[in-house]
């Protein structure tokens, strides 16, 4: 007989896998692909805030920056799709290394503001560089052939490719969290001076977590660019950094499935409410306020507390 503490995460795994596999049968595939990209983005972000205790307010730079780079190498340099999104992710990781090494010099709110300001530099670059299309964005990114023979213009082929990218990313994050490295990150989150006194090179761990998080955010952004065949300024704007925070907060910071749930709710909300124009922004803002005031643990976090399970 499995205990509740083991059963609940297994049930969530099964639910998530089941949903990812059969979703296109009853939902519009592009919608689910968008959802999976944002879910991966939120999980990557959560690796930093939830498991290392670092609030980055500049993750749009990695998400959007990678979208532009992937779009550019695929469209102009003729990279195959898989190599294209990997290039985008590697670019984001490299950018993450630069931003991270500057930002980890300061803590807490200072850290957040520095990442925000550096992300804004990236935004201005994206706005002004010749290859990005400025206000119009980078359009007409071809989806191409995966491994040379799977036609990604077929909606289902594209869908399962995106689903695979999401699952690989999610598993990687899951492995990172449950590795000794992930344990050190959580020790840093809980008590940084103690981790330092135990002899861990805290700054190096933080930087590595930042680079991983940035790279995986880049993977999500590149994949989104391939899905929509389009990279736009909104992907790199600071409000995108805010949105990913909301997704993570709403689902539950520091939980494994929370960001997926949060991304699902926010993306679904935007779709359902798209008819009411900018009132969506008011609803999103209101959700933010309600989350911060009423349930800081997030949906999955509160669920875990109700079921008295330490990790979901």
């Amino acid at each position, binding site marked *: 007989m499995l205990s509740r503490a083991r059963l609940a995460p297994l049930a969530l795994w099964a639910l998530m896998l089941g949903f990812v596999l059969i979703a296109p049968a009853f939902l519009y595939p592009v919608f689910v692909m968008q959802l999976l990209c944002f879910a991966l983005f939120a999980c990557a972000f959560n690796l930093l805030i939830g498991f290392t205790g670092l*609030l980055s307010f500049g993750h749009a730079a990695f998400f959007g920056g990678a979208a532009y780079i992937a779009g550019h190498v695929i469209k102009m340099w003729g990279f195959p799709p898989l190599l294209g999104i990997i290039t985008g992710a590697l670019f984001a990781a490299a950018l993450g290394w630069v931003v991270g090494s500057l930002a980890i*010099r300061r803590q807490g709110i200072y850290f957040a503001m520095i990442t925000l300001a550096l992300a804004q530099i990236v935004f201005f670059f994206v706005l002004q560089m010749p290859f990005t299309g400025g206000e119009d964005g980078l359009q007409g990114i071809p989806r191409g052939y995966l491994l040379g023979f799977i036609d990604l213009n077929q909606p289902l082929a594209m869908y399962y490719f995106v689903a695979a990218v999401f699952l690989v990313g999610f598993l990687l994050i899951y492995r990172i969290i449950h590795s000794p490295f992930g344990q050190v990150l959580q020790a840093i989150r809980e008590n940084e001076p103690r981790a330092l006194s135990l002899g861990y090179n805290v700054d190096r761990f933080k930087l590595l977590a930042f680079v991983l998080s940035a790279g995986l955010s880049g993977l999500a952004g590149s994949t989104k660019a391939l899905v929509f065949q389009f990279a736009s300024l909104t992907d790199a704007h600071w409000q995108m950094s805010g949105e990913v925070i909301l997704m993570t*907060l709403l689902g539950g910071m520091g939980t494994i499935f929370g960001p997926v749930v949060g991304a699902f709710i926010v993306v679904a909300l935007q779709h359902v409410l798209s008819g009411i124009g900018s009132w969506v922004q008011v609803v999103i803002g209101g959700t933010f306020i309600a989350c911060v005031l009423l349930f800081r643990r997030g949906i999955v976090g509160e669920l875990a507390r109700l079921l008295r399970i330490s990790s979901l």
Partner: protein
Amino acid sequence: MRLILAQGMLGLNNGVFYAMLSLGLAVIFGLLNVVNFAHGALYMTGAFLALILYSYLGPWLGLEWLQIGFWPSLILVPLLIAGFGMLIERFMLRWLYKFDPIYSLLLTFGVTLVLQGVFINFFNASGTPYPAMPEMLKGVVDLGFMKFPKYRLFVIVFSVAVCGVVWFIIERTRIGAQLRAGTENPELVKAFGINVPLMVMLTFGFGTGLAGLAGVLAAPIYSVSPLMGANLIIVIFAVVVIGGMGSIMGAVVTGFALGLVEGVTKVFYAPAANTMIFLLMVIVLLVRPSGLFGRQS
């Protein structure tokens, strides 16, 4: 040379808003340890209130003659924004002081989204001009190297005065001393019979009132738009990081200086003007992580 001086003056004019807004942020952060992300949105709301008082309030009430002009707005709007800020403090922020300061940042971010969304819905995202520039401030002054709009000169002089007064109140008066003591050790200050929660509320209101004041001053220069605070707030954060967070002097001096730097950069390489501030921030962080005027921590 003329071009550099001219761009410098225009830069100084932007610097006014950097200084006023980062001053409000510094007051709030230095005394309450709250990063008010909504500061830009409150500045935008201030500009809109001035516009509403002049152009919309009368028609809404059916009193076509009612137009509240620039001068009354300059007093009325900061008070309204301060009141609004105090409501936010009293009913939202107050519950978060015992948690990580990151939560108050996120809360005020939510407030920003709500305010922006509301104004976009009523006034759409493009700007509306504010038609109530006072008669006596129309026209230009000849500065020798350029003809400078009277209104902009007024804004510079007025703001320098406001910044000076705020600095004086906080650093040199009894009230300022109580404020600073209240943030260092609330229990002790309470024991002196001072109502600390009230003081905190008033301080937050004062800081946001400064944002409202900047909004009114900005309305006749820039067109009033729901996104006018959105991009400015990031620049303000950079200014505050460069100046040293919570330092009143740092906020003001850095604000004016960076406006100047930005203006002059436009002469040499215009596309870099936007990024210049952020590049400076990176350099300052590398050399002096606590900011130019910050205390080493």
